[in-house]
Every structure is written in structure tokens, then in C-alpha cells.
């Protein structure tokens, strides 16, 4: 039995699972689907074509699915898809995709979006990402698993933030952030390896050590970074994560301004389902 406050405004064609809790003054539009176990506090607004999985929590004043902030958007029924177990804190905003950008904004599972953070049109977010207070994603951004952005940071459109990457507070991100690294400052710089993030999330110590050794060669070593990548890739028995890091760096070098996803913009290759993955094996760290 769903617990829906009589003070809320839920459209009769919205598909809402049985045990969803909806607080007072929520507004739910006709094309919204909400999975079981979701909890909406008061004043949550879900409009547009929004699909939400299981066990998500929405704190007050969250707005999801309102039209994207893009001048080219012509009002098509673009979508937002949200996985399971996410938390959206107060004043979070998520916009749907645009026609030119793949028509989809996707959020994975078990992520935390802190107060006032913003996920813009056509962003593709993997699982277990975390966004601090008031950090803002521009359009077309991809965040990989376990990526963290700290409070009051902003990310340029078409940036990719690699898995286990950590962006410090008050930082502007204008180019791809390689996986496993720490990036902060003004101007921002890559400042080290996110050891804490990796070990907290269960990565094996030997794998962390391999990444640290590769980091030293790639970012603190002598000579050209591309040569270092080629030397590393030529080695036998290369650790999977290190190979991932090398591929990621090469992909970022392909795109304009160090942003791999700019390549997609140029090609206009936006068909839904083909997007979002750098040409890198998506091996998961269990």
C-alpha cells in the first residue's frame, strides 16, 4: 500500500510502485515511473519522462526531469533514468537529455548527491559516484564508478571523470580527470593517487601499488607522457587497472582540449545506447 500524502499532486497516469512514500506538496507528472521502496519527502517535483528504480531517497525540494538548460532543446520527450539505492539531498536538480545529445541522462546505482548539486542534460553517471554540496556538472559529462567531486566544484561540459578519481573542493575541471587520481586547486592540477578511495572500496593493496608505480612513471617521470604510455602498454603482465589508466589517457589526448567526449560532438554520433563509454574495456573492480 503506497503512502501518498493527500496534500501531494500525483498524476493518475504516473506508475508508482505499491510501497512508495510520497510526502506533502510533492508534484509527480504523468510520465514518471517510480520503483518499489522509494521515499519522497515533501516538495519533491518529478516531471517529464523519468524512470526511477528501487530504494531511492529524495529529500525536500529536489526537482528531476524539468526541461534541460540548453538553447538547442526543442521540447522532445527526452528522458532521465535513475537506478537503485541513490540518495538525492535537498535542492538537487537533474535535467533530461537533449535531442542533439543522445536524449538520455542516466544515473547508476548507490550514488550520493549532496545538497544543491546539479546533473545536467545528457550526463551519464556510473554507480557509487558522490557529489558534494553545490557542485555542478555541465552537459554531456560522464562520471565513472566511485568518482567523487567535492563541494562547490564545477565541471566543464564533455568532461570524463575516471573511476576512483577525486576532485577536491572549489575546483574548476576543464579536462578529463584520469582514473585513480586526485585533482584540485585553482588552476587545478593532478596531485596524487586516490589511495584512500581505492582501499576504502576494497581494491587489493598490490593493485593500488601497481597504480602508484604507474602514476609515478606517467606523471612524475622524465620525457613525453605519450612515450611513457607506449612503454607501459608494451610491457608483459600489465595490471588491468594500469592498462585502463593508459587507455584513458590516450583517449583524452584524442579529443579537443583534453576531453575525449568532444570527439563524439564532432562526429555527431549520439545514438542512444552507443554513448558513454571510452573505447576502454569496462572491467569492474569487485
Amino acid at each position, binding site marked *: 500500500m503506497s503512502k501518498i500524502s493527500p496534500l501531494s499532486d500525483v498524476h493518475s497516469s504516473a506508475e508508482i510502485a505499491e510501497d512508495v512514500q510520497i510526502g506533502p506538496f510533492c508534484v509527480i507528472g504523468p510520465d514518471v515511473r517510480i520503483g518499489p521502496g522509494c521515499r519522497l519527502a515533501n516538495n519533491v517535483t518529478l516531471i517529464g519522462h523519468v524512470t526511477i528504480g528501487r530504494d531511492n531517497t529524495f529529500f525536500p525540494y529536489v526537482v528531476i526531469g524539468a526541461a534541460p538548460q540548453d538553447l538547442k532543446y526543442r521540447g522532445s520527450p527526452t528522458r532521465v533514468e535513475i537506478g537503485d539505492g541513490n540518495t538525492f539531498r*535537498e*535542492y538537487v536538480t537533474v535535467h533530461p537529455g537533449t535531442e542533439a545529445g543522445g536524449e538520455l541522462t542516466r544515473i547508476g546505482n548507490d550514488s550520493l548527491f*549532496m*545538497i*544543491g548539486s546539479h546533473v545536467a542534460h545528457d550526463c551519464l553517471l556510473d554507480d557509487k559516484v558522490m557529489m558534494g554540496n553545490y557542485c555542478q556538472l555541465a552537459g554531456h559529462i560522464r562520471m565513472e564508478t566511485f568518482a567523487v567531486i567535492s563541494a562547490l566544484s564545477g565541471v566543464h561540459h564533455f568532461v570524463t571523470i575516471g573511476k576512483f578519481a577525486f576532485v577536491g573542493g572549489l575546483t574548476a575541471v576543464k579536462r578529463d580527470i584520469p582514473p585513480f587520481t586526485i585533482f584540485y*586547486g585553482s588552476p587545478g592540477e593532478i596531485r596524487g593517487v586516490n589511495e584512500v578511495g581505492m582501499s576504502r572500496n576494497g581494491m587489493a593493496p598490490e593493485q593500488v601499488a601497481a597504480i602508484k608505480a604507474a602514476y609515478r612513471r606517467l606523471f612524475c617521470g622524465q620525457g613525453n607522457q605519450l612515450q611513457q604510455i607506449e612503454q607501459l602498454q608494451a610491457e608483459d603482465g600489465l595490471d588491468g587497472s594500469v592498462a585502463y589508466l593508459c587507455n584513458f589517457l590516450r583517449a583524452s589526448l584524442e579529443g579537443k582540449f583534453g576531453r575525449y567526449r568532444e570527439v563524439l560532438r564532432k562526429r555527431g554520433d549520439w545514438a542512444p545506447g552507443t554513448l558513454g563509454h571510452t573505447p576502454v574495456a569496462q572491467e569492474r573492480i569487485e
Partner: protein
Amino acid sequence: MKIHPTATIEPSVQLADDVIVGPGCVLRGDVRIGPGCELKGMAWIEGRTTLGAGNVIFPNVVIGTQPQDWRSDPADPTEVVIGENNVFRENVTVHRGTRSGGGTTRIGSGCMLMIGSHVGHDAVVEDRVTLINLATVAGHCRVETGAWLSGYTGLHQFTTVGRHAFFAAFAGSDRDVPPYCRIEGDHPARCKGVNVVGLRRLGLDVEAIRQLRQVLEGVFPQESLENVDRSALAGFDARTDLNEHARYLVEFVKRSMEHRFGRAREAGRFAAARAGHS
């Protein structure tokens, strides 16, 4: 007591006689609101939250919700305690404490929290503090009396901001910020001298301000809060002619230096870990 008919108030909530509750407010849990408070509308207050007299709460304010901390549990008996005569502007958020962090988020009296500013779990904000739009006080921080955080400023968790310190807009610090100083920039934050305007308003004379400037310039010769001149600090510490404010400043910097990353409240993190709560 004036309560709008669309406000939702649970029976466990205790309101003083002359509280005004506007349309769409939701009050639930052990909320206690003191005399003369005004909730203009759409406020959400929950948990063990106590507000003293004369607080004014603008629309869309959220107080007492669960902390933004992976370890927090909705069932933890943690609380928010707020003093008197504070102003909470639109979209302000104040979270309750965590069990491992002491359990109480405190705000003193006479503070102004402007639009969208945030006070995190277990933070302590003392009296007459000003947080300007989107200023973000992270978990476990302490902001001492009279400090001023301008727009878009941020603090790292466990940071202490000393009395009457002033942050310029877009500044941020991951180290303790000494009292009476003016801070600009981030990574690292830079100490740009004394908060002259704030100290004049406080009624300090020219001589006292001069002594504070001398200490700040001596201790942070390169402006960066990361580079403390230890010998200069020891020199000031040995002096007997410092006024009470300069003495407080020297003691503050010494305390911060004793802990890792220059954050005195990191000591609380390890105390919690030892007590088995981490």
C-alpha cells in the same frame, strides 16, 4: 499561535505560544520551537531539533535531517540545538549530528545564514556568525564568534575558523583559519592580513589591530596558511606584552599546529575512533 491550515505538525512537536507557522511547513519528531519564532512557509524541520526564541525562518529551509555521511543511520538519536534571534534565509540546510561525531550540531545566537548556506553534521557555529549565499560549513567544523564567510566559500571537514575571521568570496580552506585574519583564495588559502573592518566594528583600537597584523605577518610570511614560520610563532609566544586578542591568536595557531593537516578538531576524529564509533 498562528498556524496555517496547510502546515503539517506532528503531535510530538512543542511550539511556544506565539510561534507563527506559515503555509506548507512540515514539523515532525521531537521539534521544540521557542517564543517569537516565525516560520514563513514551506520549512521542513525534523528530528531532535531545538530552536530558541526569536528565530526567523524563510521558505524552503531544511533543519534536522539525516547527515550526509555514509555511516549515519536514520535511527541515531542525534540532535540540532539552535540559539536565539538567528535568521535562516531561503534554502538553508542544517543537518543533525552523527553518533561518532558527538551527536549535536549547534548554532549560537544572532547569526545570519543567507540563501543556500549549509551547516553540516556535528558542526558548531558560535554567536553572530554570518554565512553569505552558498557558504558551506562541512561536518565537524567549528566557526567561532563573529566569523564572516562570504559567498561560495567552503570549509574542509574538521576545520576551525577563528573569531572574527573574514573569508573573501570563493575562498576555501582545508586548514584551520586563524582568528582576526582576512582569507582569500583556496588550495592553499592565503592570509591577506587583518580583518580591519570587522575589528573596527568590534571596537578594537589602532594599536591592537597593529599588533594583530604584526603577528599574522610574522607567522604567515608567505601568506599561505600551509607555511607557518615556527620560529616567529615561538618568538611571539614568548612575548609578555601581547594584548588578549594577539595572545588568543598565538594560542590558536599553536593548537592547530599540533594536529595533522593543521586542523585542531582532527583530534576529535581519533577520539571517536578509539571509542569504537568509527
